[in-house]
Structure formats: C-alpha cells, structure tokens
C-alpha cells in the first residue's frame, strides 16, 4: 500500500452461493470511502452477515471480488486480516476467562507482544469503561458490558477498518444508545472506517454516513440517510375533511404536492416541504367550501424508505436454523443479566 485509496472497501459483483442453490449474496457492488461509517441495512436473512463474512475473509466468495485497503479478500486474505478489526454479532468472549484475559487472548491471535498488548489492553479497557471489571469473569458481565468488551477486542490490533455485525443485537434501548456513543467515540479516537450491518432502522439513522439497503441478497439502494429519505419525495401530510366527497384531484392542483391517496376519507399526501405546502392545501380546500377537521405531518424515516424500496416493512424471514439459533443465543445472553 503506497498511497491511500479513496475507496477503503470495494466490492464488485460479490456473490455467495451456499450448497450450489441458496444465493445469499447476489452480485453486490459498493464502495466504502475512507473514514466513513457505512451501514448494511436489511431484515434477517437478507445477506448482511454473509457479506461481512466474505469481507473479513471467513467465507470465500463464489463469484466476483472485493478488496479491503487494496488487498484482495481472496488472494491476499492474510493481509486483510491484519488490518481489520471484527466485532461479531455473537458474544465471543470466553465466559470462563476475565475481561483482561480475553483481550490479551485477542492480542495473542495478532501476534502482539505481551508488553505492548498489556498497554493497549489497559487503554482500551479505559475507553470502554471496563477498567474496574477487568479481573472479573465475563460471565458476570451484563449484555452492554460484553458488547463493549467485544469492541475492545476488535480494536487490539489498531485496525484501519472495523467491521461491526449487528452491534446492538438484543440490547435494550438505553444500552443500545450508550453503545452507539462508544462506537462514535471509537471512530473519533481512532479515525477508522466502519462497516456495519444492522436491522434496526434507528441504528442506521443514528450512526451511518451512508446506508445500503439490502434485501434478498441484493442492494436495492445506496445513499446517505438524508438522501434516501429525500428520495421519497418529501413529507407525508395526512388530512381529513368533514364533507363526504373525494377531493384528491383538488389537492393535486396544489404546488409541490406529488401524490395523493384517499384512505377512506383521510388523505395521505406526499409533498415536498410539507410544512410550507400544508397551509396551501388547507387554503385550497377552504376556498371550495370544505372543512378541514384533522391535519398531521410526518417526516419520512428510514422505515418509509425501507417500505418504498423493498415493498414491505421489516419482516422476519425464514433463514438457516443455525443462524437463527445463533441469533437467539446472542439475544438470550444479552438479556441474561
């Protein structure tokens, strides 16, 4: 690596087919820029973890190629492993060992000498606020603490790219928000590029600079959360009138209104700049003698984006039994204490 590549992670036609029949990831193309947080958003079984497993060299792609920091994930896999950090979906820390022992084990796996490893471990423990618990067995840790320990383990080799697979799976809302803070802090402290997967919309919205929505192994759209929301064509204004008449066409004549749907007397209006357009809609209705009884406005969330691009809301899909069991186990362990 002589010069900094603009695209830290690059995937071209990346494909994984299991048992010659189950296509988990289907010709995926994307690039992750230096220093950004890139998120893969999709329901369970959409191919997020398979993609991450290919990028971290645990699985070999069936077709296509990808590179991390310019290293080919298939041909230069050992170079890739050296420059990345991984925070898996599961709790991989050994329950029988203490927090510190676990971090030192990770350090050993990277061949970091003991003295350097100890210094880094103490630094990382401080960063994730586990210093006081470093000599306690991991089985006494709460879900949030375990997650932080995993973060610390993933950073022991000072990675240039950190991969996070479902970083807050199974955590309660408060712990989740706290974990987001740690992730932001880590990113700021180390200036890393982050690649994460999640099936929580709020998480993608809160953490990611750019999001790729993935469904059935295919990327349906990529963009910043703002771009994606904006691409829906603006806000949703919901209006009800007293009279029993269809006023869809009337509303459509108002400027900036893009779409109107009559939902049993309640009109779902998609409009750019909803807060400016809404008064004009009321005005138009009044001038024709209608009485507006209700008006509400929602800014689009990633949920609407998701709905728009995949045609369905986040759903639970059938997936491999083992993956399902692993996920259940993570959730159970997260909630164990």
């Amino acid at each position: 690596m002589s010069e900094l590549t603009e695209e830290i992670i690059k995937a071209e036609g990346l494909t994984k087919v299991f048992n010659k029949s189950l296509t988990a990831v289907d010709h995926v193309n994307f690039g992750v820029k230096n220093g950004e947080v890139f998120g893969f958003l999709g329901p369970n079984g959409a191919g997020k973890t398979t993609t991450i497993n290919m990028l971290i060299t645990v699985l070999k792609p069936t077709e296509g190629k990808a590179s991390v920091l310019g290293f080919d994930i298939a041909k230069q896999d050992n170079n890739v492993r050296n420059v990345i950090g991984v925070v898996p979906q599961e709790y991989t820390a050994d329950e029988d060992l203490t927090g510190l022992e676990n971090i030192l084990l990770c350090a050993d796996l990277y061949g970091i000498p003991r003295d350097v490893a100890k210094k880094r471990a103490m630094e990382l423990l401080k960063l994730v606020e586990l210093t006081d618990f470093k000599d306690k067995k991991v089985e006494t840790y709460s879900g949030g603490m375990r997650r932080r320990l995993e973060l610390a383990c993933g950073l022991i080799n000072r990675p240039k790219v950190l991969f996070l697979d479902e970083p807050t799976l199974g955590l309660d809302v408060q712990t989740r928000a706290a974990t987001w803070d740690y992730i932001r802090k880590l990113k700021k402290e180390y200036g890393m590029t982050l690649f994460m997967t999640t099936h929580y919309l709020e998480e993608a919205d809160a953490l990611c600079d750019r999001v790729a929505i993935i469904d059935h192994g295919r990327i349906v759209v990529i963009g910043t959360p703002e771009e994606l929301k904006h691409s829906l064509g603006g806000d949703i204004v919901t209006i009800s009138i007293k009279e029993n008449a269809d006023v869809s066409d009337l509303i459509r004549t108002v400027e900036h209104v893009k779409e109107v749907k009559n939902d049993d007397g309640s009109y779902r209006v998609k409009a750019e700049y909803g807060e400016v357009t809404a008064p004009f809609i009321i005005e138009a209705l009044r001038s024709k003698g209608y009485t507006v009884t209700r008006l509400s406005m929602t800014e689009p969330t990633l949920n609407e984006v998701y709905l728009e691009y995949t045609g369905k809301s986040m759903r639970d899909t059938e997936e491999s039994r083992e993956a399902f069991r692993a996920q259940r186990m993570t959730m159970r362990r997260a909630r164990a204490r």
Partner: protein
Amino acid sequence: MSKLNEYHPSRLHGIWALTKRELKKWLKEPIILFMAIIQPVLWMGLFGKAMNLGGMFSGSNFGNINIPNISLPGYAVIPQYTSGNVTIPGNVLSQMFQPMFANLGPSVMQNIFGVTDYFGYMSVGMISFIVMFTTMFSGMSIVWDRRLGFLNKVLSTPVSRGAIIFSKVLNAALRAMFQATIILILAVIFGLQVSSTFSVLNILGVYAAIFLLCVGLSSVFLALALRSTKQETQMAIVNLINLPLMFASNTFFPISMMPEWIQAIAHVNPISYLTDALRQLTVLPLDTSMLMLDFTYLSIFAVVVSLIGIALSWRYLTK
C-alpha cells in the same frame, strides 16, 4: 498514510495462544477433570478389583473340591495283577494335587494375561480408556466455538487455519496425558505391580504412545465436530462407537481368547496397540519387538488418520 499492522503471529505463537485458552478454561473447571477421572477409577475399583480372575484359579478354591475315591483295575497300576481293583482314597489325591493347583491359577493368568493379577492387566487398559474418551470428546469444544461465534472471530484474525486445528489436537493430547498420569498413579496406589523392566524412561514411552493415538483420533473427531451442527450428534457418535471400540480390543481381555470376527476388529483397532504398548512399558516384561510393532502401527495410524482429519477440517475452514 496507512501502515500495515507491525505484528504478525508466528505459527507457533497462534497454536500456543489457542492451546493456552483451552487449558485455562480446563483448569478453571476442575469438576470436568474430576468427572473425567472418576469413571475409569470406578471401573478400576469395581470391575478390576471385583473381577478377581487370579483368585478364581487359586489353590484354595480347588482345595474345597471334593475329590472322590478312584478305583482302578489292578493291572493298570501294577501289570502283574490281573484281577481285583486298587482304590486310591480321595483325600490322598487331593493332597497330592494341592500344590499343583496352587500353581495352576497364576500360571493360567500368566499364560493368558501375561500378568498374574487381573487388576494389573485392566488398570493399564483404563489408561487407554481415558485417553480414548478424552480425545473423542475434546473435538466437541469446537462445536461450541462455532456456535458462539468464536471460531469465525479467530478465522478473521491472522492466525493460520492450521494453528486452529492443531491447537485442538494438542489440547486433546495434553489433557489425555495429564489424565493418564493420574490414572497410573491411582493404579499404583490401588496395588498395581510394575514389571522388573520398568524404568522412569518408560514413562516417556507411555506419553509418546498416548500422544500418537491422540493426534490421530482427535483429528478425525475434530473434522466430525466441525461438520455436525449439534453437539448431540457428536455425542451420539462418540457413545455409539466408544464401547464397541473398547471391548473389541485388549483393554479388558486378551485378543487370543476372542472369537475370530472380534479378533479381526481388535487387530486393526488402534486401541489394542496403545494398550499393548502401555502394558509392555509398565506391567509386562518388556518385549522390544512387540513394542516396536505397537509404535509402528500407532505412528502410521497417527500420520494417515490425522492427515485425513486435518484435510477435512481444512476444507471446512477455508470454504
């Protein structure tokens, strides 16, 4: 300017780090060690001591046998007599045979088992028993490693795939050797008599033999464990084959006493060779050519089977 991580794990470093983890976990749960030890100890105490084969053939057991008077035609005793019978009273007979019977038991034992005491024979077999069990179950931990995501995590670090496999094999061997030592010490406490050819050097031979069997057996079971998604599957397989494998070997009884079809199995069963090597090195007067045969077989077994096992595991880990 991005710089590569300055540290790289050497192959040995990776193996040692992963083996250390396993051993640490093991030492932190002494109950597992205790449970593993207790079973062969029970066998040794209950079966080895209760099944007193040596005692069965002892002189005192024959002494109680009521030997009837024997009448013989006179000419059979002294050819000149052509008529009449000679009667030898039973108590005279019994007195005459008593010393012969007293020697009969030990010599029957010696001829069949090679030692005069069954306990000595089977307690060494128990070392094979614990080695086999420990090795077969040791692969199981990788099922957990995979389910808990640890395996994937290690796969994403620069540790070589070979180190992952070999650390498991090494761990199995170390555990087995440690437990074998405990069993051997307990056997001596319970009254095991070592042969006159026994020396401290033989202990090294014992470890070498155990190591060879462990390497072969644990590689196969590791490959099996990697493919079985459930711990229960692995359990079932181990339970299905361990007892037959043990009984179709010289762990409890000499192969020469078995029906031919069991002999056929026992002669290819590596457990037989391990057990014989252990006996040669401890309770039997050392027969060097037998020992060489045992070690040759165990070495071939270790190399061939571990190559197959490692190849299978390797293919799984780099899929």
